[in-house]
C-alpha cells in the first residue's frame, strides 16, 4: 500500500499569535511546528504501515525551511519526503494550494492520501477535500478512526455528538483530526537518518496538469481584508423542545429574528 500524507509547517500558536503591524502573521516570532492535525494524519499512516505494511511519503508545500517538518516526519518513520517550493507558488490561498498539491500528487502512485483536517494558522479545512476534488477521488473528512479492509477504508467520521461509519474504495483521501491519536515521538536514530535523507524538491515545472492561472497569489480568489486573533465562540444555547413541531417553530423563529427568512 502506498500512502501520501500532506503536512504543513505552521507557526506554533500555543503561546498566542503574533502579528506584524500590517496584520499579517509574524512567523519569525513564533516557533515553526508540524500542524497538529497533520501530525495525527501522519501517525495514522504510520500505524497503517505498522499494521498492514505501507510506504509512507510525506509531502509539503512551503518555503525551503518547510523541509524541517519532512525530516521530522521521516524521523518518526515516514519513508520519503517531497518538498514543493517555488516563488511563483507563494501567497497561495486554499484553492491555489490544493491545485499545487494535486499537481504534485499526480506524479505519484498512491492508494491513500491523508491530510490534516485543517491547519492552525488558517483554520479553513478546505485543502484536503479540494485535493480530492482535483484528483477526482472520494474524500472522508474528520476521521477519528481508520481501518483497512481489502481495497477499502472504513472510517469513523466525527460529528458533534456521534460518529458516522463510512466506507470508501481506495484510492481515496481522508482528513484527520488531532484527536485521532497521540503521535509517536521521533527516535534518535530516526533523526540521524532523516538528516542524512535526501528530500525531493519540486518546483512549478514538476506540477502535472495545472494551469498557471490557478497558482500562487495570482491564482488565489481569496483576498484577505483583515486578520485578527481568533475570538472564542461562546458556549451556545442548548434547547430541548418538547416536540418536533416546537423545534421547527423555535428554529424558524430564530431565522426570522436574524432576518434569514
Amino acid at each position, binding site marked *: 500500500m502506498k500512502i501520501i500524507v500532506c503536512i504543513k509547517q505552521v507557526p506554533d500558536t500555543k503561546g498566542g499569535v503574533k502579528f506584524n503591524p500590517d496584520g499579517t502573521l509574524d512567523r519569525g516570532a513564533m516557533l515553526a511546528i508540524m500542524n497538529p492535525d497533520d501530525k495525527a494524519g501522519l501517525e495514522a499512516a504510520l500505524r497503517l504501515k505498522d499494521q498492514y505494511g505501507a510506504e509512507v511519503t510525506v509531502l509539503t508545500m512551503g518555503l525551503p525551511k518547510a523541509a524541517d517538518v519532512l*525530516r521530522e516526519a521521516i*524521523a518518526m518513520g515516514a519513508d520519503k519526503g517531497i518538498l514543493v517550493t517555488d516563488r511563483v507558488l507563494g501567497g497561495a490561498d486554499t484553492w491555489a494550494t490544493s491545485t499545487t498539491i494535486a499537481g504534485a500528487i499526480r506524479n505519484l502512485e498512491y492508494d491513500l492520501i491523508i491530510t490534516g483536517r485543517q491547519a492552525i494558522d488558517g483554520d479553513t479545512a478546505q485543502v484536503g477535500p479540494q485535493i480530492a476534488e482535483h484528483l477526482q477521488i472520494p474524500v472522508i473528512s474528520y476521521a477519528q478512526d481508520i481501518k483497512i479492509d481489502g481495497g477499502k477504508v472504513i472510517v469513523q467520521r466525527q460529528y458533534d455528538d456521534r460518529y458516522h461509519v463510512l466506507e470508501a474504495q481506495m484510492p481515496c483521501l481522508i482528513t484527520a483530526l488531532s484527536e485521532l491519536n497521540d503521535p509517536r*515521538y*521521533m*527516535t*534518535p*536514530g530516526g*533523526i*540521524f537518518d532523516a*538528516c542524512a535523507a535526501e528530500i525531493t524538491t519540486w518546483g512549478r515545472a514538476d506540477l502535472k496538469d495545472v494551469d498557471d492561472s490557478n497558482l500562487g497569489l495570482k491564482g488565489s480568489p481569496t483576498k484577505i481584508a483583515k486578520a485578527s486573533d481568533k475570538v472564542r465562540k461562546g458556549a451556545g444555547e442548548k434547547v430541548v423542545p418538547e416536540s418536533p413541531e416546537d423545534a421547527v417553530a423555535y428554529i424558524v423563529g430564530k431565522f426570522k429574528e436574524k432576518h434569514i427568512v
Partner: protein
Amino acid sequence: MDFTLSKQHEMARQLFKDFAENEVKPLAQEVDEEERFPRETVEKMAKYGFMGIPVPKEYGGQGCDILTYAMCVEELSKVCGTTGVIVSAHTSLCIDPILTYGTDEQKQKYLPDLASGRKIGAFGLTEPGAGTDAQGQQTKAVLEGDEWVLNGSKCFITNGKEADVYIVIAVTGKVEKRGRIQKEISAFIVEKGTPGFTFGTKEKKMGIRGSSTYELIFTDCRIPKDNLLGAKGKGFAIAMHTLDGGRIGIAAQALGLAEGALETTIAYVQERKQFGRSIGQFQNTQFQLADMATKVEAAKMLVYKAARKKDEYRTNPKISYSVEAAMAKLYAAEVAMEVTTKAVQLHGGYGYIREYDVERMMRDAKITEIYEGTSEVQRMVISSNLLK
C-alpha cells in the same frame, strides 16, 4: 571553532526535551517520594531507542554519537535526576564496555537486548573496602574447568536489582608489577538469575531516590568461562576506561540538574512577590541568576567537549578523552551543587519544601560529586596528566 549544534543534534534535543516534559517530569516527584524505580518510563524510553543511543545499528542501537547520548541524559536530568542516571549507568557502564571489549559472540549475545532496552545493564566495581581505591578489591573469581566461580560482594550498584546484565570486576590472581606483587583484576559479564548471585538490602539514599541501588552478593556463583570480558588481568584498565566514559554521562546528568534548577528559578523569581514587586527585580536575584547561568554555560561547554572527544576516540582509538571527561564531571558536578543550592536559597522557605522541584534537585545534585569518581579523584586524574 564552531559552537553551533548540527541540525540532527538540535532535533534530538527537541525530542529529549519533549519526552522529558511529557513523560518524565509528571512522575519525578512521585518517583523520589516513593523511592520507586520508574519502570514505565524505562519501557517508554526503550520504545523510542533511548536505551541504545550510541550503539551501532548492527547491534540494534540507534547508531548515534556520544554527544546525542549526553544530551539525552542532560534533558532527562533537567526534570528527573533518577531517570538520567538509569540511562547513564545502563549505557556508559554496561553497554560501553561490552561494545569496546566484548568478543563478537558477546556483542551479538548481549547488545541487541541492552540497546533495545529489553534488558537493563549495571556495573559492579565498588566494594565496602574498595571505592576510590579500586585495587582494594576483595571479590574473587577462580577458574574451575569451564566456569569462573565468583565470591564476594559489590555495593552501591546503580540499577542494582532492576538490571539483567552486570559487568563485574573481580580479582583473578596475583601479578608482579615493577617488583611489587599486585592483584590481578579481570572483568566479567554476569546475568541476573545465575545461581549464587543474590541481592543485599536496598540503599536508602539522600537523592536520586528512584534509582535502584543495591548490594550484589556472589556466593559460589558459577558463570561460563566465556563470560570473561576482555583479556584476563585487564579488568582494572577496563574499569578505569569504562568510568572515563561514565563520567561524561554523570557530567551530563549534573549539567541537566543545574539547568533544571536554573530554569525553575527563573520562572519562580518572576512570579514571587515581596515588598510589592517580583523578587526577580532585585539586583541580588539578578546577579545570582547571572552567575548561575554563566557557570551552567561553562559546564555545558566542558560536557559537550568531552562528549565530542569521545566521538573522536570512536573513530580513532589512539585519542584519549580521560582528562576532558574528568574536567567535565568535576566542573559540572560542582556547578550542579552550587546552582541547585542557590536555587533553593532563591526559593526561600518554599525551596525547602518537598513540593518544590528545587528541593529534590539539590539532593539529587550531591551524588554527582561522589559517584563514578569523587571530585577529588577527578582532580587526581587531571593533575596527573599535568605532571606526567
